[in-house]
């Protein structure tokens, strides 16, 4: 038998909750929240956190190979930040997961089982030093666009973490630009290196923002996150912002966008461009991308090989 008063309670709570969000109030971890909100946050924030952790791996590939002391240090600092961002975000997700009895260990298990998704870009291979620059410049650029859009997120802990993260992203952007600038002003070989990197990464950059609508891949979380004011712009709006902010810079360095059709339609006030292969996107985020399994294995192997460390220190807690 349904308890009528609890049903009324719930819908009243939901109304108050929506009102709080509309007023610009922040929701904190112990506040009442609808399950839909909690679940959306957990999915979004775990994915974001895990993306940072997994994203450290393609970048870290270039730490030992970086061609100068300064660049080695710069990438090390950047990789450290990615891990640090992952830490901040996973903590936020973990606090939300407590009510399901899950913790960091469970999150790592889910990651290795393939149950957790991470951004498409981090499944891609890196081939040259140009990739190291491109990642810092445009992949981080894309991430800055999506992250700054959530700086005013309704969920307090996420908004606070994002403030710290975005402040550090400024250094990342400049570090990436520094690498690219040296190449753009360098030898023919160096200039070709960035163009080649751009050609290979362009589709992944477009895909980073997610499909414009659920029609494309059969799923899209953007409606829920917009409804609850976790973000304000849609995937397509963010992708358009990326074009507006970055295409002029890319062209200014003498590079060509590997999409001959791309142009800004003055009348429609929108960028017209060639769609990436969204089927490929679906495969990639199912952990079937070019480097998905290798990177997961790399992490999983180390995590499992060193499980004894965690077991040892846990065993002696009194």
């Amino acid at each position, binding site marked *: 038998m349904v308890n009528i008063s609890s049903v009324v309670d719930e819908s009243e709570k939901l109304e108050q909750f929506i009102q709080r969000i509309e007023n610009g109030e922040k929701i904190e971890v112990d506040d009442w929240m609808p399950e839909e909100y909690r679940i959306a946050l957990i999915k979004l924030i775990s994915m974001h956190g895990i993306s940072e*952790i997994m994203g*450290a*791996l393609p970048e*870290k*590939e270039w*730490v*030992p*190979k*970086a*061609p*100068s*002391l*300064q*660049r*080695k*240090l710069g990438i*090390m*600092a950047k*990789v*450290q930040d990615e*891990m*640090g961002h*992952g*830490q901040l975000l*996973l903590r936020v997700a973990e606090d939300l997961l407590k009510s399901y009895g899950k913790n*960091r260990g469970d999150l790592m298990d889910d990651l290795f089982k393939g149950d957790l998704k991470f951004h498409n870009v981090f499944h891609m291979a890196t081939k040259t*030093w140009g990739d190291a620059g491109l990642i810092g410049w445009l992949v981080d650029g894309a991430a800055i666009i999506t992250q700054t859009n959530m700086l005013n997120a309704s969920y307090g802990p996420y908004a606070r973490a994002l403030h710290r993260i975005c402040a550090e992203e400024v250094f990342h952007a400049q570090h990436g630009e520094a*690498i690219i600038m*040296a*190449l753009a002003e*360098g*030898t023919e*070989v*160096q200039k070709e290196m960035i163009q080649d990197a751009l050609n290979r990464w362009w589709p992944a950059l477009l895909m980073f923002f997610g499909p414009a609508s659920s029609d494309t891949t059969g799923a899209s979380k953007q409606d829920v996150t917009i409804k609850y004011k976790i973000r304000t712009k849609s995937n397509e709006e963010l992708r358009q912002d990326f074009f507006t902010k970055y295409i002029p810079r890319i062209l200014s360095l003498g590079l060509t966008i590997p999409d001959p059709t791309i142009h800004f339609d003055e009348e429609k006030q929108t960028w017209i461009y060639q769609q990436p292969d969204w089927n490929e996107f679906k495969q990639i985020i199912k952990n079937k991308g070019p480097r998905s399994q*290798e990177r997961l*294995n*790399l*992490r999983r*192997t*180390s*995590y499992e*090989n*060193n*499980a*004894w*460390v*965690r*077991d*040892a*220190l846990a*065993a*002696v807690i009194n």
Partner: protein
Amino acid sequence: MSITTLNPENKKAIIKLLYQLADDDFLYAYRGSEWLGLAPHIEEDVASSSIAQDSMGHAAMFYRLLEELGEGNADDLAHARQSHERKNCILVERVNGPGSYMENAQYDWAYAVVRNYLYTTAKKVKIQSLKQSSYQPLADVAVKVDMELHYHLLHWKTWFIQLLSSTDEARARMKDAYVQVMNDFTDVFSFGKDAELIKVYNLIDTESVLKQKWIDTITPVLESVQLEIPETFDTGKLNGRNGDHTKDLQGALSILSEVYDMNPAVAW
């Protein structure tokens, strides 16, 4: 002593010592950086990353001192020199474990902790001595390095003691790692063929003084976890200070100079 008042032999002694110090920290930092993303705990990954960065920063300071002495550009010194030209100790060139850092890395955390802790304790002894170096620029660098060593020591000592004081399994692994690290400790305090030259100019304490200071500081720590310094810890044959290295170093060098080698003359 400043650069302008150095006689050629004095300058040579400083240069010899600097290559050892620079190459030590450079390789140490390089091996540390291979662990990025692979530490047993995310918070630890973030924290130990700072140590690798600090250490590479120390190497950069030493390479820059060499630059000031006319040895060439710091980046070239770090990236262009071949295996037989390197003066690091064997301990820091050793791989972290089987596999490569990009694929199938089977790195052992016990080895990382023991190597990092013992290397840092040895570095501390040397740096303390260098603060009194007759070569002022080196003494100044030593003061800066010493400031960061406080954290490095606390960090690795905490892991070292805690793992050795925990479960039987952890202890067994740590003891194996300890034996492995001690087997490579021979040339850590050695100055190789340049020992006499370096001694003459009061740049740093002698090998035997440094070694004894280290033994004095480390013994109580080891005793607290029922470990001893093995008698053979300084009797090995290979001396990295004389340019004798293992193939592990060759592996490291080919990766770290991969992009640099494409065109050493350009800016990156």
